[in-house]
């Protein structure tokens, strides 16, 4: 039985909620596979701001390099999930 799936989905949902709140975008406009640079209209530094917020929320520490090459919410969620 795969118990990880519900947790992964919850992590993803929470990331989408937080991103919507931080960048004032309607939650329903964000999808798991969206390119967050484009959907949120943000640059890489603003993405790091989001990462900081996610760290506080999930109580994990994510090195900057964890985000290198990541541009969609689903992959971001998997990186965070791996450190929970």
């Amino acid at each position, binding site marked *: 039985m795969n118990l990880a799936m519900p947790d992964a989905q919850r992590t993803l949902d929470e990331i989408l909620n937080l991103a919507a709140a931080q960048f004032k975008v309607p939650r329903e406009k964000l999808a798991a596979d969206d*390119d967050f640079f484009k959907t949120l209209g943000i*640059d*890489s*530094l603003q993405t*790091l701001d989001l990462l*900081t917020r996610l760290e506080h929320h999930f109580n994990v520490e994510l*090195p*900057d*390099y964890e985000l*290198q090459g990541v541009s969609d919410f689903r992959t971001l969620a998997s990186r965070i999930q791996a450190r929970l």
Partner: protein
Amino acid sequence: MLNLDQYTCLGAALREALNRWPNETCLIESDRDKEKTRLTYSDFKEMAMPLARALEDAEFHAGDRAAIIMTNQSKWLISAYAIFHGGGVLVPLDYKLTAAEHLELLVHCKAKFLVVEYFLWRAITQAPGFKDRKVQAVLVTEAPPGTDLAGAHRWEDFRRKGDAVFVPRQREDVACIVYSSGTGGRPKGCVLTHDNYLEQCKALIAWYPFWPGVRYLSILPTNHAIDFTVGFLGPFVCGACVVHLRTLRPEFVRDAFVRYKITHVSLVPMVLKNLERGLKAKFEALSPSKRFLLDRLIALNKFFTGWRPDVRLSRVLLRQVHQAFGGELRLVVTGGAFMEPSTLQFFYDLGVPVVNGYGLSEAGTALTLNDLKPFRADTVGKALPGVDLRVLNPDSEGIGEIAARGKTVMSHYLDDPELTAETIVDGWLLTGDLGRFDASGHLQLFGRKKNMVVTQGGKNIYPEDIESVFDGLPVKEYSVFAANYVWPVKSLGEEMLVLVLRLEPGQEFNETLKQDLVARNRRLPDFKRVGGWVIWEKDFPRTAAMKIKRMALAEEMRKTLSRAAVAGL
């Protein structure tokens, strides 16, 4: 500061610096809010010598090439010094490239040694082509204990006792190979000599000297020409201190300014814009009375500093703003990409002088810099001492291609005499940038002649380098262009890459094709992605060797398509 005329190579100048200021702090490494390393010049020497000796024992000889792929940290500079000490050639590679790109450039530059951070090495070992690499020895920093390093050495253990022999180089010898672009298509390895760097340093510190007590915040990647010169060589030959911050998180960047009472920093436009956004948000949140007072103080500061910056006065008038930067910030250097004049003016009006400049890897680092006499937000400054600039074939408005000549101009492109001959003509470096000089000798830029974009993060992106991601796309043919190359706008803003598609007869652009484009585009790092697409109704003009005639295609598109036809991707 050292008299750089006395030295024939970077190794000799740096070596003298380590002996000249043994008790001054030269390097601080901070990760988030934790200080990890603090070294005096004497400590730095003690850290570097065993590495230099180990390199010597490993048959690293004068002229051998050693690449570094690392984020900003103390081991970057220590390794660079050890390489120069042994007479080696340093190849600083951009850590943000993909592992496949790293491998490609390592092959291209024929690196004998590689110094690399663990997380990057892990990615490289998993990239296709890893087994074919020719690097003789790899030093990996900060690898977790017990990790299999695929034959590499631990940087921390790669040390030998005993003095290393200093290997002097001549001014015309190669110091660094710097890639100004270039993977996928045609790597452009700028071959820069010791003379190039020593003269560049001399020119920069003639206008903006450092001294013991200066604390320079290094957050641009050290492989970036600006940080390598202004954030390593410059401070070291002046006995100053470099503060490395291992994160770009805006909150920790702001904190580092205060914690280390930073006096100097170099930033690319993206970071400066981020700081501007943060400050403006704070200003907006002020009560009406406080905001009124702030606006009056800014106006007063503008009045008194219109002709020359007066940092002391600005710190008194706008104390809280300056305290947010630690209270001792004297100068911000920016360049590497187009900076909006309004942002430069915003900081200058707050009493934070932002020195804007212009340069390219092919010219060492900088060709021009604002001399603040007075501050000009609308230009990239005047030619640095020793740099000759001219405008080629100016149009009726005086705008033409900028050509540069001087001791900082590179020797050549590595293994590419044809490209070198196209780029350096009769001793003049053709920059591909369009500009003109105003009556006071300030250079204003108006766009690019070359087919490339420069990101807000200061990275050059050449369309040829990213086209391979669209290989196999189900269309008749495709090509990527810089939008401003096809449709010149006499500006350096609004830069984007455009994918030009020639569909098969009867084929329609449908959702499936669009999703294919989106998926392929995402395989590229975010700063390299295509911003839009456009359909072209004719076959592409091609050479006899079937290469696309890019210039001819761009000209045809310019005549028959408007930029408005580009759809966002």
